[in-house]
């Protein structure tokens, strides 16, 4: 009887310890799953900071070069253009510019239109139809996700109000814009942009906050 009792006690202790191990394992898995999204978001932010630092450093380097070279070299020839286009195509994750909106603490680079990373799954994407910011009276169109994922760069755009400012840094020059119009459109795969064609514009497009069926268009005009 005594031996039986002891073996029963041992068995129950074993079961308890096994249950504890399984519980502990699931707890760890739960913690990992629960914290994975915010941690991934923070990791994305850290990588983004470094990319911007590299981008900023390269801009500074380029400026020094431009200041020190002979002005004869500044004449743009067709040959130079070809090299520039070639470089543009080669660019993979090298930022060519940066969008910053101080009110919502947004600071994010964008890659060239030809880069495979010019995609809302990686970055703030430039629309194919967009003009670069240096084009007079052009429309620079940017798109990005909103939501909770770490690629939701336009998550806080809904907090913007008319008159808020945005800056686009492109080719070592800053272009300042002011928000003038915000409107919604249904998500049909296409978007109509209503803007003043006599003013250089920045257009930001993202999904409407807490709405699965609409997209919001933010029209900024150059100051």
């Amino acid at each position: 009887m005594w031996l039986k009792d002891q073996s029963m006690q041992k068995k129950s202790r074993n079961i308890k310890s096994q249950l504890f191990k399984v519980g502990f394992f699931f707890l760890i898995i739960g913690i990992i799953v629960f914290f994975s999204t915010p941690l991934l978001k923070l990791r994305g932010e850290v990588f983004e900071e470094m990319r911007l630092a590299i981008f900023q450093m390269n801009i500074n380097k380029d400026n020094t070069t431009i200041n020190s070279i002979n002005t004869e070299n500044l004449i743009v020839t067709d040959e130079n253009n070809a090299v520039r286009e070639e470089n543009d195509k080669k660019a993979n994750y090298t930022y060519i510019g940066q969008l910053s909106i101080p009110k919502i603490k947004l600071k994010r680079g964008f890659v060239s239109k030809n880069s495979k990373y010019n995609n809302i799954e990686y970055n703030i994407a430039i629309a194919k139809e967009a003009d670069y910011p240096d084009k007079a009276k052009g429309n620079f169109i940017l798109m990005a996700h909103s939501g909770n994922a770490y690629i939701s760069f336009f998550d806080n755009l809904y907090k913007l109000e008319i008159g808020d400012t945005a800056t686009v840094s492109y080719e070592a020059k800053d272009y300042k814009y002011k928000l003038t119009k915000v409107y919604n459109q249904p998500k049909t795969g296409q978007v109509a942009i209503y803007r003043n064609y006599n003013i250089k514009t920045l257009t930001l497009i993202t999904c409407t906050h807490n709405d699965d069926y609409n997209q919001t268009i933010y029209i900024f005009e150059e100051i």
Partner: protein
Amino acid sequence: MDLSFIDKLLTFLKLPFESFLNIEIFLIFIILYIFLLYNEKRCNKKVKLTLISLIIFFFACLVFYFQEDIISVLSEIIKTIMRCFYFPNIVFYILTAIISLIILIYTNLKSNLTKLNKIITYTFTIIHLFLFTNFISLAITNNTSLTNTANIYQHDNMFVIVLFSQIIFILLIIYKLIYHFCYIRHSKLKNIK
């Protein structure tokens, strides 16, 4: 910032009495302190538990009122850890190499360590130091200035080397901590027996 020593001292002493809230906070902490001291004499378990729960309640209230700030502070702490892991600056990276070197020398000189422990430690430290040396040689070949962190990580090969050496270093530290705690526990158990 440019205060003299006496001014600093006076400001520090005046601080708890600057506003009603400051006086309140000061009194709460004084009362907690007196209770803790008094309870050391009495050794009352109930008072101990009440004090601990009061302290936890006080900080929970702080967390509740400053929720957003605390979340941003926490995320900043996590980001700093991530920065140290993914993009450590050269000072931090050299520091890890020095720690690795000290562990290697200590393991080599210490005679009462097990062979398996020595082998594992040698493996981790040698790989870490090898990667560090490789990093330095790459910096020389790429002609990279190590003072600017962004300058280092624009080279993919340097980023990969640093990442792997950080992983090895973390594994080494985790192994050392686990071994240390197990060893202490094991020796304590032996002493008890």
